[in-house]
């Protein structure tokens, strides 16, 4: 059992979930754009600091922006390994695609062929899956991992491959006691695959933002706790100086 009794560091949400979970588990967090799921994902990462190695894979933010968001809430980003998968994918795959498109459209000069450097060999075997799993393979003790978000995988992989990624992460979690959170910012990709991810996860959360008066109020739904449906709950939340807190904002519906 991992000595870590915080999931998000929100006692009203974390509650007794840890007692109900196996040593290694996979959680998914869904939330539409504007719901605040990326911040909750960072809070999940922050809650692991000091207990286990923390890996944060971002697919849509700049690495500096991720770190700044940590700092803004008083969380130490230096203890989190931030990996920017989108940048790596762009640099190693998409840039090559642009080069190729340019070469095909404009033709090649002799200088581009004689004495030139080929595209790095690694680009040929670059895989988002391998990039993450190789990191996980190097960890031999409990860890905490965030993938924010899995939406990017839907863009570059076949839907079935996305579930395979999730299965592999979960397997690694189960093997060495890891805790992983995959965020899904939009569930419009493929409802069937989303359903599979929900089935696969030990925990499923959804963060919703609803307009109320002149502002949005947020609610965190603990939709699934594997084998413990009685622990599912609905928690009003809001953002304070130290991140997400339980409780509705003043004036919001209870």
């Amino acid at each position, binding site marked *: 059992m991992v000595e870590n009794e915080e999931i998000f560091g929100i006692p009203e949400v974390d509650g007794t979930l840890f007692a109900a979970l196996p040593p290694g588990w996979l959680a998914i967090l869904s939330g539409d754009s504007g719901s605040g799921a990326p911040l909750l994902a960072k809070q999940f990462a922050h809650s692991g600091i000091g207990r286990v190695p923390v890996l944060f894979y971002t697919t849509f933010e700049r690495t500096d922006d991720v770190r700044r968001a940590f700092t803004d809430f008083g969380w130490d980003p230096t203890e989190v390994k931030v990996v920017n998968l989108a940048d790596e994918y762009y640099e190693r795959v998409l840039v090559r695609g642009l*080069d190729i498109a340019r070469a095909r459209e404009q033709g*090649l000069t002799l200088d581009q*062929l004689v004495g030139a450097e*080929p*595209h790095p060999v690694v680009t040929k075997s670059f895989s988002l899956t391998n990039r993450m799993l190789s990191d996980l393979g190097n960890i031999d003790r409990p860890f905490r991992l965030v993938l924010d978000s899995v939406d990017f995988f839907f863009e570059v992989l076949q839907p079935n491959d996305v579930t395979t990624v999730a299965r592999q992460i979960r397997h690694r979690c189960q093997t060495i006691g890891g805790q992983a959170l995959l965020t899904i910012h939009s569930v419009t990709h493929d409802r069937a695959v989303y359903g599979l991810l929900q089935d696969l996860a030990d925990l499923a959360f959804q963060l919703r933002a609803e307009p109320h008066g002149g502002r949005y109020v947020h609610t965190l739904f603990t939709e699934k706790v594997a084998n413990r449906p009685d622990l599912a709950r609905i928690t009003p939340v809001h953002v304070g100086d130290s991140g997400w807190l339980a409780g509705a904002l003043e004036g919001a519906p209870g």
Partner: protein
Amino acid sequence: MESPAEPPSPPPRALMAPATILERCTTGIAGLDDILGGGIPRGNMVLVAGSVGTGKTTLCLEFLVRGAERGERSLFLSVTEASEKLIQNLSTFEFFRADLVSDGSLVFVDLPMLYDKLGLEHEEMTADEIDILIRTIHDLVETLGVKRLVLDSLTSVCYRIRRDEAIRDFMLRLGQTLNDLGCTSLLVSEIGPTQGRYSMHGVEEAIVDGVVLLWNTRRSGDILRVLQVVKMRGTAHSRAQYVIELTPIGLLMAPHLKGGHPEGA
């Protein structure tokens, strides 16, 4: 090795219009130009077929070096061997001049680099990718003013085209493109020592303008290299077999005498 079945030939000269003397691309290889009546008709695409160790690449390289010496820009498209290594091997021949490479008269391009730059790494090229490959070769030949081209090997390229009809189409278009640009080309075809044809798929020899066959034969304990011009459109030529010797000064040819004690291929 017995010569494979004869590929399609042009109509007998007697049935053709009054003979026109086509411009020749002098190979510069002692003996070969004599066989061909002065050289390969300019713009012809010629298959140089042979099994391993028969001298295909050396013949092709000498063809390019001799051309570059005559001021004809020459291009070697290498699939199977890195240019650097080819040049290193070539430097052991006295006929090779490094200055031809440094002044750009003799250009080596590694096709894998071209594949990489154009994203043509799939195991089987699509029709679009074949089109890109032909267009790129065309652009290189046109831009550089290439008059002699060697593709070593056609077999490697066709391996990734696979379908006979696609290979036929590729070769027809490549031949037309190079001919339009006045570029004479040698395409290396790798065949087995006992293969009964001149190419892997059997369609290549039907498209090309000429076939030069090379093979090894044993005689009195020696392995001799033998060359035969099987087909050459646009010129009368000898079909006799010639023993070739790869010497430091280049490829030398002598009639292959039928006497002796042949020991098979």
